[in-house]
């Protein structure tokens, strides 16, 4: 079996309830970040704490790519999802047969294989229509 590696360490996880994205928050001014920021980009405070984001958000925008990107063959979808915490997440989207993308639709995070690299399976987050 191929080694499973995350696309980046420490920014997503999966438990009994399902997939979740891990951002962080400035302990001083409360500004949220995803992916995690090394320091607060608003007030430069370095004291940050991990925050688990909601599993669902609203589709802000999307596109379906018809030429290859670095790791995806066409057709593939990408988009921005606005989370209830007030933060916008960029992610690959799952294309489904029955739920065409529409701005404002509810989306849910899933963890799955993004691509294979040599003998590694690279996993990460995607959003799919609810």
């Amino acid at each position, binding site marked *: 079996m191929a080694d499973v590696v995350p*696309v980046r360490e420490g920014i997503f996880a999966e438990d009994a309830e399902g997939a979740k994205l891990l951002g962080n928050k400035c302990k001083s001014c409360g500004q949220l970040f995803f992916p995690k920021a090394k320091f607060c980009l608003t007030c430069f405070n370095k004291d940050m704490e991990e925050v688990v984001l909601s599993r669902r958000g609203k589709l802000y925008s999307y*596109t379906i*790519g*018809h030429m290859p990107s*670095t790791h*995806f063959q066409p057709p593939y979808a*990408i988009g921005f999802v606005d989370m209830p915490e007030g933060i*916008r997440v960029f992610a690959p989207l799952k294309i489904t047969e029955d739920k065409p993308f529409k701005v404002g639709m509810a989306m849910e995070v899933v963890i799955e294989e993004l691509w294979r690299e040599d003998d590694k399976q690279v996993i990460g987050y995607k959003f799919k229509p609810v």
Partner: protein
Amino acid sequence: MREVAVIGVGQSVFGKFPEKAVAELGGEAVSAALSDAGISPKDVQVAYASRLYNPWCTAQDILKEVGIRHIEMVNVENTCAGGSTAFRGVWKEIADGHYDIGIAVGVESMTTSPIAGKLIPPEKSDLDGHLGMTMPGIFAMVARRQMEEYGATVEDFAHVSVKNHRHGCLNPQAQYKKEFTIEEVLDSRMICEPITLLMCCPNTDGAAAAILCSLDVARRYTTTPIRVIASTLQSGDYKEFQEDITVSPVGTRVAKMAYEMAGCGPEDIDLVEMHDAFANEEILRYEDLGLCKRGEGIALLRTGATEIGGRIPVNPSGGLLSLGHPLSASGVRAVCEVILHLRGQAGARQTPEAKVGLAQMLGGVVAGMEHGVVASIHILAR
């Protein structure tokens, strides 16, 4: 601070020339600018050159072709605004009194660059890039928001491409001198929905050069110097702070600074040359530059105001869409086009009675920052 004028402009033909070295492309533009200014190579005291691929000693390499050596030469890179950065560099040298005459040159050989015929690959640290973010991808998502929020249609996006290709037919130096219909633009190959191939600027080789000098010195060479009345260059913010992806925060800020410096407003501008790497982008920049109110860019386009012969022609050169986009050359080239109009030398694409013109460039993708992370505006007046 001293007043600065432009006394010479020059440009190579734009197109695909994989057999031409960067020195040859740049040399064509520099020779043309020198003869346009009517000065000798030995009059040039300082030079700035810009190039993205590959950036070593570009100024020295190009200027040896025309006999310029010894002098202070600076090489800069700032993606699509690299040429604007070189132009501003020379402007500062002269405005600050370090030198009296200088040359700015921008050059790119896209067909021999590592990204020829490819998308720009993401940096290792660029998580979004690895997750599928591309330049056409981001502009496609911006286009989706324009449709959702402002009622833009795919025909509007195609309209910009049709307009700029029509303009390009009047420009002998354009890469594509070919008109297209709305249907042809929409039926061209889909890149990222709803952006089609003919809504994207092509890969292009080319160079442009401008000769700047103090206004006092300019009067020795010409009775009609074109003055640089604003020069601005700014960088963008973290992407977390860009609430609406249809608005460029840095592009809006740099416009405000430029108008303040020039002591004029958007209503005083007679023509604009700008970054239209993707057709839908031009509509947004009408708003960033204050040519119309926020949300009214589509209406401005539909009235024909931004066509040659309209109230405020935008990209009469043909823009990046038709003229082509040699990345670091475009910033200088945009200034050169504005100057031709202000001198009344723009031929069939001339803006009548042009007194004040604006040249804008915006570009650069950096992980974690607003897309289009560098912006520059120059305002020129006769």
